């Protein structure tokens, strides 16, 4: 479906830089090598996966709120696992597993980083396309293939993978232990292996493009923060994704070829298995060596987008550009040495726990700097409350709220009692789930005109979408902290199997009602998105009066982005509301921004940022 995103007003592009091949429907919409089309493919595939992932959460939220109630909707969607409207415990675990997998990898990694890295890297650095359009195309199609495999796994006989998105062995390795660890898990591992290949090809391409293809004058210190974020995200991906690949590979071998990397001393289903000498803790190390950087792979692009959208709509430079870059680098570095905080009580040596507590709480420092810098960016601004701006402000809010509880979880002593409870679920949904989604939505609203040839999304629908979503998100996840602090473990099909947690039923009902409202309002977004693709009002070339280069490119999508020569860059990306030397007016009279391709004017001071 992704390929049909845009079918209006198509004419053969006019080409003035040497290519004279004719584009067919297939090369333009399906196997396109143009970064703008690939970006749209990523976005629409990501949204499609997001719809599935979020609907899954709706199903298990219904189960959690009303465990005794029979829902026809379960029978419709879950078939034999929802007979008579009662959800089977195994499919509950499958739903949380696939929800996590889809949201983390398919929506927030590929859908967010894939979409905006592809769209913005060439356009904002002043390049005609990615370093390798072909690899870029292969990257998308591998992502598409991995999505297909993941969705296909939902339909296998014994059910999809259901060992949690972290797929810890031995549960994920032994089909005897849970039905989903049969063909479902094989497909899960296959899908993720393909996904990793896709991610690596994409990331290498982004890195090479940023390093080699910046236009004249675009020094690294003049890059918009979006590009810094995408660039560093790609580096983290290249460093950590191969480690997950090795873990997946060893798990496949344990499952299919009788090796014992992660298995030892197991008695299950009445027999002793031959496995000896492996360790599940090894898998946990390998998994989280990716798994933790992964949350920064998810959040850094959102941070980049928010910084850019916030500066533009505040009509002010981003506060502390160098500190923002430094904190991105610091977060990236620290993100690779904190994975052990997921494993304080895994049985690893307690001394390691001390080390990881230290590094983990260190990462709060650059995060705090970023939060304060965003707030200061708003200070004395002239805030243009476009939908993207609202989502950026809300991003800072949820990032702070979710980030603060990280101080508790990152502290090994405190983690003992909240580990794997709903407290963790509340924490990471706010700090990376909701925040990153806000970043994604801010990006969609902000760059929609760039993606769809000048058409704009309806702001009215955008406002409704924003307010209901932001109220709903807090309504779901704030009360969830209480459930965790009450000691309720996550991934429980029902907490009414024994009486102790009976009094949490109210909170679960409230959370589910907020979830239903929040999920429903996403329909408004989807309608706004797809309707605006075809019928959205055409805006000006540079609707938000932004300084960055993408708004100097042609509104109509042409191969090579700029009809004429590539623009040169003379200044950083944040000359908003800069005054002339006499401070009588803006540098360009009557215009509160100076695009990056405007040379230094006589009436302005050159500032060292």
């Amino acid at each position, binding site marked *: 479906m992704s390929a049909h995103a845009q079918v209006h007003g198509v004419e053969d592009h006019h080409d003035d830089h040497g290519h004279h091949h004719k584009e067919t429907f297939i090369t333009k919409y399906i196997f396109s090598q143009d970064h703008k089309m690939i970006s749209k493919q990523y976005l629409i595939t990501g949204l499609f996966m997001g719809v599935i992932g979020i609907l899954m959460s709706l199903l298990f939220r219904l189960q959690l709120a009303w465990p005794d109630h029979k829902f026809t909707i379960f029978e419709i969607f879950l078939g034999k696992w929802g007979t008579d409207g009662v959800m089977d*415990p195994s499919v509950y*675990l499958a739903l949380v597993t696939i929800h996590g997998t889809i949201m983390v990898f398919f929506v927030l990694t590929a859908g967010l980083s894939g979409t905006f890295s592809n769209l913005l890297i060439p356009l904002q650095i002043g390049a005609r396309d990615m370093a390798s359009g072909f690899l870029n195309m292969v990257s998308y199609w591998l992502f598409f293939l991995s999505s297909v495999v993941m969705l296909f796994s939902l339909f296998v006989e014994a059910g999809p993978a259901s*060992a949690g998105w972290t797929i*810890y062995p*031995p549960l994920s390795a032994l089909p005897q*232990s849970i039905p989903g660890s049969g063909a479902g898990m094989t497909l899960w591992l296959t899908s993720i292996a393909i996904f990793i290949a896709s991610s690596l090809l994409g990331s290498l391409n982004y890195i090479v493009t940023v390093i080699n293809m910046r236009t004249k004058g675009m020094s690294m210190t003049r890059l918009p923060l979006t590009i810094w974020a995408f660039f560093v995200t790609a580096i983290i991906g290249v460093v950590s994704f191969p480690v997950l690949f090795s873990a997946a590979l060893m798990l496949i071998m344990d499952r299919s070829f009788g090796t014992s990397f992660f298995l*030892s001393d*197991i*008695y299950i289903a009445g027999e*002793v298995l031959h496995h000896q000498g492996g360790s*599940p*803790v090894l898998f946990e190390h390998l998994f989280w060596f990716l798994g933790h950087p992964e949350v920064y792979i998810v959040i850094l692009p959102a941070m980049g987008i928010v910084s850019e959208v916030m500066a533009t709509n*505040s*009509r*002010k430079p981003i506060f502390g*550009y*160098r500190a923002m870059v430094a904190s991105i680098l610091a977060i990236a570095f620290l993100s690779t040495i904190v994975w052990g905080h997921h494993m304080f009580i*895994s*049985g690893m040596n*307690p001394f390691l726990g001390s080390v990881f507590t*230290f590094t983990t709480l*260190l990462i709060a420092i650059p995060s705090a*700097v970023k*939060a304060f810098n965003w707030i200061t960016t*708003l*200070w*004395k601004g002239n*805030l*243009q*409350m476009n939908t993207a701006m609202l989502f950026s*402000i809300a991003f*800072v*809010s949820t990032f*702070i709220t979710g980030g603060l509880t990280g*101080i508790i979880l990152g502290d*090994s*002593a*405190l983690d003992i*009692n909240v580990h794997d*409870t709903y407290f963790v679920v509340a924490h990471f949904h706010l700090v990376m789930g909701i925040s990153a989604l806000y970043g994604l939505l801010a990006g969609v609203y902000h760059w929609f005109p760039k993606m769809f040839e000048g058409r*704009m999304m309806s*702001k009215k629908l955008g406002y409704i979408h924003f307010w209901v979503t*932001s109220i709903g998100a807090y*309504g779901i996840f*704030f009360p969830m902290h*209480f459930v965790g602090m*009450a000691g309720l473990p996550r991934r429980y*099909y029902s907490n009414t199997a024994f009486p102790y947690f*009976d*009094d949490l039923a*109210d*909170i679960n009902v*409230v959370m589910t*009602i907020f979830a239903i409202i929040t999920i429903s309002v996403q329909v408004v977004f989807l309608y706004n998105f797809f309707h605006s693709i075809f019928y959205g*009002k055409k805006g000006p070339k540079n*609707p*938000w009066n932004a300084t960055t280069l993408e708004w100097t490119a042609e509104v109509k999508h042409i191969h090579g982005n700029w009809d004429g020569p590539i623009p040169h860059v003379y200044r950083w990306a*944040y000359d908003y*509301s800069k*005054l002339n030397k006499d401070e009588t007016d803006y540098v360009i009279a009557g215009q509160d921004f100076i695009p990056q391709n405007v040379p230094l004017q006589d009436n302005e001071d050159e500032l060292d940022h």
Partner: protein
Amino acid sequence: MTAFLVVLVIILFGISVWQMSRIFQLAQGKPSVNSEIASDKDNNTQGYLMMGFLAFIYILTILTFWLWGDVLLPDSGSEHGAKIDNLMLISMVIIFLVGILTQWLLHYFAFIYRGNKAKRATFYADNDKLEFIWTIIPVIVLAGLIIYGLFTWTDIMNVDKDDDPLIVELYAQQFNWKARYGGNDNTLGEANVRLIEGVNQLGVDPADPNAQDDKIVTELHLPVGRKVLFKMRSQDVLHSAYMPHFRAQMNCVPGMITQFAFTPTITTAEMRQNDKIVDKVARINEIRKNKSVALTAAGEEPLETYEFDYILLCNKICGISHYNMQMKIVVESEEDYKAWLAEQPTLGEQLKSK
């Protein structure tokens, strides 16, 4: 209660939608040149809504504490738990202060600096002093938390063998728990899953002299005031032994023995008198009574009255019945504990009677 909350949420939602639709109606003045870009009017309404949202966050916080503050865990039943709770309290106070302050700044700035064509933003690109301040403050606060946290952690995790702790094995399998006491010698016999056979369900080595007096039980009894060192094993997949009332948790990993130690300080009987627990049990029994009415109407047995007991829960996804893998824990006086233990058969006896 539930119905009340549902109605409350629906009413609040309805009001917000109504208010919003009013705002949008008001906002529909004369059409601007391009209506999809925020106008000054939009900036104004959205700015006010930002303040409304700030109020929403604060009210939500207060309301949730008021409604659900009493579902939180009661005082810790273990010695080290008090330290964890103290650290938790300090961290929570810091978090709330920072959260309240930063959310206020964020939303207040969004409101007060809402855009207007007549206004001009201040070109303010950086300030090294400010940035230094908000780098160094988190550094100091976090350093304090790290140091306090690490001392607490080391204290909890390092088990001093001189304490002569009671040795208890926690044995996890899909989907139940067993406990093995070392018996008179307080030493566990060697065990391996390869030795599982018949009644010897934990794979204890019958040839090991230490194993003869081991006692395997399905209900965990602990003497109050004595340190217990748990040795944890799993026979199939990862499990996690989670004892929330004792602020204790450790994963059970097939192929290795993990450990966690704590000293229970409050007996089950005492905990049942705890105000929080009394309230909680009353609430739970109220819910159960209502359920029982429905059950008897349908011709089924009513639910029994619930009484508080400490529990051991599985807290690592372990399969279909993960949600129902638990064991009762009884903390009692040394005498009661000894009397109970004396009634349990030793492994040697069990193997012989086979």
